[in-house]
Each structure stands twice: as C-alpha cells, then as structure tokens.
C-alpha cells in the first residue's frame, strides 16, 4: 500500500494547479465564512413577555408622566417579537430553538424606574451552543436595551435638571407621596447673610437659623437621592442575561475552528474523491484489485492520504492564525486528535463520493456541491428558522462530518464542551461512509 501512497504523492507533486487550488480555495472560503458569521438574520425571532400590567406602565417623576410601553417600540425595532404567556414558555421556546432568545420585562420595572434608586432589570435568555449566535444575541439585546435607555435617559435628564433648579431657587417637591417645601440656595443665602449681620450673642433668631439647618439637611438628603438618580440616568434599564445551553467561546476563537474545519473539509473531500475516481479514469482500478491491493486497502489508502494532506494544511493554517489570534499550543495533542478524526470522517465521505461518481470531474463537482451546504447548514443557529426546519437541519447536519468536526475542533481549540461525543460521532460516520464507499466499488469498474 505504501507504494500506492508514494505513487499518489508523485501524481500530486506533478499537479501544481490542483495543489494550489486545494490550498487557496479553502482559505478563500474560510475568509468568506469569517465575514458571513459576523452577520445574523435581519430581524431575529425573540420571545417577549411584558409582565408590567397596563395600569402600571406609566410612571410619574416629579409630576411628569412617562409611558414605559412607548419604549417597548424601541426594543421591537430590530427584533421580531413572539408573544408568550409565561417566563417558562419563553425558556421552552429558546430551548427548542423556536426563537433566538427571550426578553422578559418584569412587573416591577416601572416601580424601580420610579424609585430611581438604581437601574431596573430586564431578563434575557438565550442558547450559547453556537458562539456566533451568542455574539449575535448579545449584540442585539445590548443594542435594543441601549436604544430604550437613550430614550428614557432624555426624560431622566429633564427630571434631574428640575431637581437642580429646585435646589437653586427653592419650591415644592413630592417624594414618595409626601410634599416637601424646599427653601432653595438663593433664599438660604439671603437669610444667612441677614442673620449674620444683626446677630447679637444671645440671638432670638434661632428659628431662622433652624430653617437654614433644615435646608442643609434636605439638601444633603436630596444629594443622597441623586446618587441613585444619576445611576438611573446612565442606564435606566439593565439586561440580566442567562445562558440556557452552551459555553462562552469567543467569536474569534470559534471563527478559527470554522476556518480550520472548512479547510479540512475541502482538502480531504476533493482529494479523497478525486484520487479514487482517478484510479478508474486511468483504468488502473481492476489491475490494482486483481490481487495487488484489496478494495478495502485501496479505500483506506485514499482516505489516509487525503486526511494526511488535509491535516498538514490545517496545521499550517493554525500556525498562521496563531500569529494573529492566541491559541493554546499546550492542547496540541487534542487538536491533532480532532483533526485526525475529522480528516478520516471527511476522507470516508470523499471516497464514497469518488466511488459513486467514478469520474474525477463528477467527483469534484459533487464534493463542492455537497461541501458548501454541509458547512452552512451546520452553522444555522437555532431561532434563525422555524423550530421544525431547525430540527430537520440538525438531523441533516448530523449525517455529515462537518458539524461533529467543528464541535471537536472547537472543544480542542477553545475548551468548548466535551470532545468525546463529537469524536464518537465522527467514528460512526467514518465507518458508515466507508461501508458506502466499499459497496460503491462493486460497480466501480
């Protein structure tokens, strides 16, 4: 078998165009995917529950009424809200992938805003099994909450200005339902000046000085209150995000895993399918399997060579990426394990394609046609499509090696989830596609 391997390497060495294509194409695709993953669907479906009763949607601050429900429109400007009846229903929809995330407006939101002692919280749920999706949800929610905050901040700023005016000029203020008379700094100054001018040693004007003292106390109290108000002015609403499933892989690190998986896929698929089909095109297949090499041995040689070349390309790619992104070289053995299993999975699919198509050009075309949808389907986040369609996509993705290879590499590179399950998945797919390839050789010649 090693002589056959040597022969294939010789043929590859004499096909510089093919080798260049095999190296450059996956890099181009990886870059394109990198751009693609930075964008999500235009209006993602988000489960929405507003627990604030309609009667409590208006809050009153210093006599000014603010209808919070109006600010909901800001939140809905870039999401497609899916109304739910309970928080559990929202969580279930996130779990099932029916929606990208869930946004819960708690019943006490307006009370907290009215109290002004700090930000009011909304609750956000999403799956983070896919870092692309996690980043997208984070960005979307952050953006929407920021929009709502900007609108509310304008109102709070107006209120803060009236407080400052009150402290300066004096007047009446209503706090927690009680009305207070505020002297104001201007009047206080006049009183204190007058008191100082005509104050004998045992002065009867203690009452007036008492007013000054009261003002000072109230001013101090108001300043204490303003701490919360100022905090609220900055961020009236905060989002409490809770991840239902998945880890916290950064998008950059995930993009590395995608790029390497795409390279591994293209190089292995094209090589394995092409070099097997080439044996038939050169009419050498029957000569080889006539006692020189077993059919199974031939398949293993093609799978192994394709996987080996793809692993080398992937490692070179990782070394290049490591110049720009920090990678944990201490986990190199795990990278290698993931690449070997992924390479063999793609190799088995490749020889199945080569065995079925039987011609190099047809094999290459089918490999291309299969590879791109295989990659893109595996990257569709839950919530981007309907629940039923998402389940179909998950099943289809599970039938091909891209998703488990991506999971295994993501685990090896980024400590995201367990590596065992994807490796087992890849082993099963390798055997399954190997059997298909072996069966296809029955009519290969």
């Amino acid at each position, binding site marked *: 078998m090693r*002589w*056959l391997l*040597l*022969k294939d390497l*010789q*043929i590859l060495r*004499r*096909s510089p165009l093919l080798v260049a294509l095999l190296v450059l194409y996956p890099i181009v695709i990886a870059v394109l995917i990198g751009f693609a993953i930075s964008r999500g669907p235009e209006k993602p479906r988000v489960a929405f529950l507003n627990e604030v009763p309609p009667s409590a949607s208006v809050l009153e601050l210093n006599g000014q009424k603010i209808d919070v429900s109006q600010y909901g429109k800001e939140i809905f400007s870039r999401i497609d809200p899916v109304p739910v009846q309970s928080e559990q229903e929202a969580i279930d929809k996130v779990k099932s992938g029916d929606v990208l995330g869930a946004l819960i407006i708690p019943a006490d939101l307006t009370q907290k805003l009215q109290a002004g002692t700090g930000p009011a919280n909304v609750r956000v749920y999403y799956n983070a099994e896919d870092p692309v999706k996690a980043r997208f949800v984070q960005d979307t929610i952050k953006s929407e909450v920021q929009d709502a905050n900007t609108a509310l901040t304008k109102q709070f700023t107006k209120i803060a200005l009236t407080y400052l005016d009150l402290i300066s000029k004096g007047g009446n203020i209503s706090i927690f339902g009680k009305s207070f008379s505020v002297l104001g700094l201007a009047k206080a100054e006049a009183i204190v000046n007058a008191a100082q001018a005509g104050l004998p040693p045992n002065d009867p004007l203690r009452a007036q000085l008492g007013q000054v003292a009261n003002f000072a106390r109230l001013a101090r109290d108001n300043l204490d209150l303003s701490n919360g108000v100022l905090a609220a002015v900055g961020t009236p609403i905060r989002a409490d995000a809770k991840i239902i499933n998945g880890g916290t892989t950064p998008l950059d690190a995930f993009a590395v895993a995608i790029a390497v998986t795409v390279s591994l896929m293209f190089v292995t698929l094209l090589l394995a399918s092409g070099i097997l089909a080439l044996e038939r095109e*050169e*009419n*050498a297949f*029957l*000569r*080889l399997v*006539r*006692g*020189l*090499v077993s059919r199974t041995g031939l398949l293993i040689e093609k799978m192994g060579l394709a996987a080996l070349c793809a692993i080398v390309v992937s490692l070179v790619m990782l070394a290049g990426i490591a110049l720009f992104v920090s990678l944990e070289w201490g986990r190199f053995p795990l990278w290698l394990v993931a690449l070997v299993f992924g390479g063999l999975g793609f190799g088995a699919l490749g020889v199945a394609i080569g065995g079925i198509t039987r011609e190099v050009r047809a094999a290459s075309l089918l490999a291309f046609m299969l590879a791109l949808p295989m990659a893109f389907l595996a990257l569709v986040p839950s919530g981007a499509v309907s629940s039923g369609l998402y389940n179909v996509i998950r099943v289809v993705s599970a039938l091909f090696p891209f998703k488990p290879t991506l999971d295994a590499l993501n685990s090896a590179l980024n400590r995201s989830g367990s590596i065992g399950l994807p490796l087992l998945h890849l082993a099963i797919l390798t055997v399954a596609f190997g059997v298909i390839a072996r069966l296809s050789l029955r009519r290969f*010649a």
Partner: protein
Amino acid sequence: MTEATATERTLVLEAHEISKRFGEREALKRVSLEAARGELVAIIGPNGAGKTTLLSILAGIQRADGGSVSRPPGEIGWVPQQAAVYSKLTVAENLRLFARLEKRPDVEETVERMLAQTGLEQRRDDPVSQLSGGNKQRVNIAIGLLSAPDVLLLDEPSAALDPRQRERLWEFIRELAARGTTVIYSTHNVHEVERHAGQVVVLADGELLFAGTPRELEQIAGATDLDFEEAFVAFLRQRGH
C-alpha cells in the same frame, strides 16, 4: 484441432465448463478452453458474445457461476483493453510501481528487463501521457508481463492502434509467444486471427461454437474459396448467428 497437434501440446491453462449469468442473461454457457505453452489463442465472436467476460473470469476479475480454471489468477498476466497506466508517471515509474506492488524480488532489474523487452529504453523517463497509442499499449502489456506469467490475457490489444503501430505490437506479441508465453487475446479483427492465432475460439451469445485452428474453421464453414473473414461470417450464419 488435430489429434497429433494436441498430443504435442503442453497445456498450461484449462478452463472447464465456465458459466456466467448476469440476471436473466446467460453470458457464458459452459464454455471450455485449453491453451498450450507458447500458443497464441484468439477469442472471436460478435458483440455480446462473452469474449471479455471469459477473459475477465480467467483473469480473476469476475467470478464464474460454474466451472473451473486450472490456474489461479495470480499466475496469469492480464492486460485490459484500455491502457491501465498512470499518465502523470513516466514509463519507468509505472513499471517500478507495479513491480513493487507485484512484490518482485529485484524491482530495478525487472524494470530494466521490461524496458528492454518492450523497446522503450529511450522513452523510460517520458510521462506516459506523451507516448503514442502503440507505445502506451506496450507499457500496458509490459505491466501485465512484470510477474513473468506463463499465460498472458489481452483484451482487444490492437483496438485503438493504427496499422503501423498494430504491426509493431504483433511483432512484440509473437516474440513473447516464441519465448514460451501463452497469449490468449480477444479481437474483432479476424485478419489478425488468420495471421497470428494458432488456435481460434469462437463464441456467440455466450456459447462456444468452435475451438481449433483458423484453417479448420474455414474447412468447417465449407468456404475454402472465401477469405477468412467471409468464412467466419458464413460459419456464424450456419450456426444461426
């Protein structure tokens, strides 16, 4: 075949009542064949007669449904109709690869011997893609001869060659036979049978119609005033084909 000829012959291959069926179609119906050392055996017949199927079974590429072959496939050289060589590799590299796969004890010696035998020493470092059809077929045959088999099977060896290339190929094949290699070949060119075959085997619809010398075939056809091709056609007509 005369009785005297048969007694002088040293049989190197015997196929006994070979049968093969593809679904409902009977491709070979209890076909028997024997070939002697250094003999040139031509298998002829109309399209679909079972010529390639018979050669494939003798070569071990297909399994027969019934019957037996006296030699295992490993002891028989096989040369497919279309050159089974790697066009990106040179002549020497192709020979070296298959010599290694054949596990020849001295690979380089075997390669040199085959280059000399096929007259391709000057083209040893040329990629096969740059060779003419005739030379490509020589490399194809050389690979079939790497294990120095006693019996060589050729499936329509001259099908894609021009007359000059064909003549050179037959010279080469005759030399092989003269050195003791038994060559069994299929062909549609009955003139080649007349010129080069010691024994002719006629198949039609999977049935063995005749096995003997070309002259005997002409006699059976009762067409001594016709050329061999006309005699062959007359013979097929007599047998209902």
